[in-house]
């Protein structure tokens, strides 16, 4: 009897320990912040002619341009994904579904970072049909029509990959799914800044990825709950 009680207690202790170790995200209060900027002359962004699709054109008060190299004041670079590419000892895992919208014949956000196996929901908010065509190579490519009023497409990506997305009906629409092995990532805003929080102490490799200029990496070591800075500079070309 006493033995049985002891076994039950032991199991309870082991299970609760396992919950603490595996189910909770790594306790950490370190962070890496920084700014992504460019050197050189960036390309002029092509204006987009949406006159073919009046229902989209009228949603934009100012002319829309391509978003492959979006720059801001102080040579800042927007839509750069900064993420922990090495050094992490298992994250908390994705909690909620990532959302991707087709709105005004543009992808919102232009670049969507998400974790492998994270649920992904793709919405068509427009009055027209889109076909969503992720040109995956490592994952399996697919291509689905989503007419006006269709329910969202529920999907996920199993393997890490930078996946370009396009709509064949509206050839100016270009976006990216950035599928990562980590939940520690950020996308630079219009001021080029990013902020990766919740990092436990450790040695990390931080990678910045820009769709046209590729990746840059830096090693960052965090001890305690340090807030470290990592800035990235991409050399851009006008063409």
């Amino acid at each position, binding site marked *: 009897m006493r033995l049985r009680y002891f076994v039950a207690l032991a199991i309870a202790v082991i299970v609760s320990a396992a919950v603490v170790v595996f189910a909770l995200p790594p306790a950490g209060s370190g962070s890496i912040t920084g700014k992504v900027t460019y050197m050189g002359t960036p390309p002029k962004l092509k204006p987009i002619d949406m006159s073919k699709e009046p229902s989209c054109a009228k949603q934009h008060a100012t002319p829309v341009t391509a978003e492959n190299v979006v720059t801001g004041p102080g040579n800042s670079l927007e839509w750069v994904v900064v993420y922990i590419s090495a050094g992490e000892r298992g994250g908390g895992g994705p909690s909620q579904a990532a959302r991707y919208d087709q709105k005004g014949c543009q992808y919102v956000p232009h670049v969507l970072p998400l974790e492998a196996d994270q649920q992904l929901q793709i919405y068509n908010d427009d009055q027209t049909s889109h*076909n969503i065509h992720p040109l995956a190579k490592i994952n399996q*490519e*697919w291509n689905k*029509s989503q007419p006006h009023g*269709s329910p969202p497409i529920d999907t996920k990506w199993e393997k*890490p990959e930078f996946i370009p997305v396009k709509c064949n009906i509206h050839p100016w629409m270009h976006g990216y799914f950035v599928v990562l092995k980590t939940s520690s990532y950020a996308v630079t805003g219009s001021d080029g800044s990013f902020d990766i929080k919740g990092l436990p102490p450790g040695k990390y490799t931080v990678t910045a990825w820009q769709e046209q200029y590729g990746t840059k990496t830096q090693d960052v070591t965090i001890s305690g709950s340090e807030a470290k800075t990592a800035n990235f500079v991409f050399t851009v070309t006008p063409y």
Partner: protein
Amino acid sequence: MIPNKFAVTFALGSMALLSLGATVVTAQATHVNSVSPNLGAPSVETEESRIDGVTGHAYDGKKLYRRFCIGCHGQDGNGEGENAQWIDPKPRDFTEATFKCRSTPTGTLPTDEDLFNAITRGFVTTNMPQWRPLSPQQRADLVAFVKTWSPKWSEEKTGTPLNIPPETPITIESILRGRTEFQKLDCWECHGPEGHGDGPSASTLTDDKGNPIRPYNFSTGTRFMCGETNRDLYRIFMTGLDGSPMPSFADVVKPDEAWDLVHFLRTLQPLKTQEASLWKSYVAAHGKDIKPIGPDVAAGVQ
């Protein structure tokens, strides 16, 4: 003492293996887009295909591939054989395991039979001929070999073939409903209001390698890329042609609506079909009342 020592060695060994594994995983994460095509792909020695009681062997298929396919599809299976530069559309790149003609949903691998049918049928309006002169056994061997070019064939399951219910009756009502679908689903954006392959987006279309590609022109009356029957036509737009701009409509079109669309699409071809003759007499009687398909109508609807 000896068992203990063994246990310690074993534990250390497994830890070393685990950390090695972690290193490999980390390396993959850093270079996520570097593909090494054959790493993890099925073995040429053992890979098989099964089609209608015939079992194909990749080992035999390899010899046939070197004899019949290598000129276009290349020694690495990537579609860059010595003839490829003269060919448009380009030969299939087997290392990507993306195939147009499937019975399975978009984003899934085709069945062995789908690949077998593709080799047998060839692709009309491309340089891929029919391979009927090869025996069914030889074609099955080639199917098995094609599956040794990509690791996806060992990692992923083949998709479940689309269920195609029996065809609904061919009536003028069905054709008219199909015509509404053609407008509503924006088929005309690429295939054109009259199905001539000249829609507003037609000239901008590219395949997954960025090469220009043309939408099907119904007025030529040629066979479709993936077959010639009404069932084939149903399957084409429901599964989509992966690797091309043609999407899958399986999530947005119900089976009855799909058959309506099939019946309408047949009226766009200059063929002596039941659909075409029904449509011809309808146009003769109601020609003035038929609203044209295209952007103006769409704007009016919205």
